[in-house]
């Protein structure tokens, strides 16, 4: 048994995760502005440059920003091992991710190949640094659990997603002849179905029971789900090599993927219904909204398998996955992680009196307001492909959400700084 590396006090400095978290809301504002930049409704055409740009603002600038920041914080707790050289790793992921997440959507929106050609190596640097640090951390981890497996598979899927993304961006920039549709399908499958879903699955195994005192996920599900999802993703990639791909193959492999994703949503909702902690909690509500959205995304994806000519159903399913599922969970996690970090880093200094408790860091009323705003945005997004006014409402919703989240995070930082100054003044 490895015990040398067991070190339970390895939290990185508070500035590491907060740097990532505070940059993320800016990309919601950019996504909102991008969506309203064109004359047409961007949701009506899944290939519209504005939708492509806004999607990457959200996936890279918002989601990846939060996920990369949160993982550096969460790894020591869930697998007992932190990232190597936390400050350096943090800067080498944060700065290139920030610049790449600005350049790539700008390249799509303005149709400038030079921006795309600048973006992909920079984003490559961010993710290669993160993936290498993540793999080292996993290799050193003393814990052997389902979370570790899921995070490992998630990082492997990220590696594939990034390689394909770099190839696609380079291809667009240089006008190379590439099978774009198939590469894009593989890129989306690995990034959303692999990296995002597997990471959420792995982290949920730990935080769902932890935040609400629910029973644990059943052992067979915990051990089997992430590998099963990963294998199905590999089958999806293999099926893309078939030329032409029989329709039944698509139904089987994609159907299997959505069945597994749906099982995860149902299992999580079921566990949450069995929770021992029955007090109102914004994080719980964000998680439940997310799981219900994942379930609806799965049902709609099934529908698109049988009505493939209806492009817009697919758009709604993707919107439900991204905005409904992934984004809700990130909000839920942030509203627990940030107040805890502020408390933890103040309290760790040995000061016991006058340290604000978690509910004094970000007022709960803001979290509930955010939940309602997010629900309304999501509702509008369901109608956006058909109704132009709804597309405008989605942009407005994202804009307000970016402002609200940014404000909540700045309040948290202000509370931290104010308390720190007071503590220092109180010292003899």
């Amino acid at each position: 048994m490895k015990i040398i590396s067991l070190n339970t006090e390895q939290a990185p400095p508070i500035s590491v995760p907060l740097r990532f978290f505070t940059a993320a809301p800016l990309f919601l504002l950019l996504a909102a502005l991008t969506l309203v930049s064109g004359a047409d409704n961007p949701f009506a055409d899944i290939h519209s440059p504005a939708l492509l740009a806004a999607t990457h603002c959200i996936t890279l600038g918002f989601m990846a920003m939060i996920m990369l920041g949160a993982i550096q914080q969460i790894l020591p707790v869930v697998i007992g091992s932190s990232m190597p050289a936390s400050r350096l790793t943090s800067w080498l992921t944060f700065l290139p991710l920030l610049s790449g997440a600005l350049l790539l959507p700008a390249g799509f929106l303005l149709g400038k190949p030079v921006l795309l050609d600048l973006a992909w190596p920079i984003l490559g640097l961010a993710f290669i640094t993160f993936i290498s640090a993540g793999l080292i951390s996993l290799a050193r981890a003393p814990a052997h659990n389902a979370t570790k497996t899921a995070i490992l598979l998630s990082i492997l899927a990220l590696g594939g997603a990034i390689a394909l993304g770099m190839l696609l961006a380079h291809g667009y920039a240089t006008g190379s002849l590439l099978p774009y549709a198939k590469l894009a399908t593989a890129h989306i499958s690995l990034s959303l179905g692999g990296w995002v879903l597997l990471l959420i699955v792995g982290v949920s195994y730990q935080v769902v029971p932890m935040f609400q005192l629910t029973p644990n996920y059943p052992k067979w599900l915990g051990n089997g789900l992430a590998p099963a999802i990963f294998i199905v993703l590999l089958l999806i990639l293999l099926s893309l090599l078939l030329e032409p791909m029989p329709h039944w193959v698509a139904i089987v492999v994609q159907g299997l993927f959505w069945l597994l994703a749906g099982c995860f949503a149902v299992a999580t909702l079921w566990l949450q219904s069995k929770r021992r902690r029955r007090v109102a909690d914004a994080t719980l509500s964000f998680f439940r909204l997310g799981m219900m959205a994942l379930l609806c995304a799965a049902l709609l994806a099934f529908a698109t398998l049988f009505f493939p000519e209806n492009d817009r159903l697919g758009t709604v399913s993707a919107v439900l996955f991204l905005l409904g599922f992934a984004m809700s969970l990130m909000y839920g996690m942030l509203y627990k992680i940030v107040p805890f970090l502020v408390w933890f880093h103040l309290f760790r200094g040995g000061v016991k009196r006058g340290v604000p408790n978690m509910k004094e860091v970000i007022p709960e009323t803001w979290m509930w307001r955010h939940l309602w705003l997010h629900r309304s945005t999501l509702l509008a997004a369901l109608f956006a492909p058909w109704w132009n006014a709804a597309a405008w409402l989605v942009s407005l919703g994202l804009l307000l959400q970016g402002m609200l989240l940014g404000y909540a995070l700045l309040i948290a930082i202000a509370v931290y700084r104010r308390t720190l100054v007071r503590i220092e003044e109180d010292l003899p």
Partner: protein
Amino acid sequence: MQTIAEFMSANHHACDEAFAVAEQAALANNWSEAETAFNNFRTELAKHFRMEEDELFPTLVSAGGPAGPVQVMRMEHAQMNTLIEQMAGTLTRQDAQGYGGLSETLLIVMQQHNLKEEQMLYPIADHFLASQREALLGHMRVE
């Protein structure tokens, strides 16, 4: 035979249960029930800490187990005890908001502490203390 990990994890769950009952009563402003439930929780948790600090940790360290992580666990116990003292104050003042904020904080501290013990420290203890497990569990049961 029950392992140390199984026995101690079950004990964590009993503490969680008592925690949840107390929190719900306090947030519902049901102060007499909250006080009983809180005292029950405090007693359960104190007993759990004693089992670890008086029996498990010293036995583990003297058997060559890792001293650093054990020290961190003790420090986290102290953190939780401070929060519990502050919660007792809000209970006396019947301050539901204050109690809720502190119990939210305690929950996260307690759960991530439990996670580290259940996934790392207890399995290490089972590994190092295999031959003395029966006796150790016996001592902890009478705490």
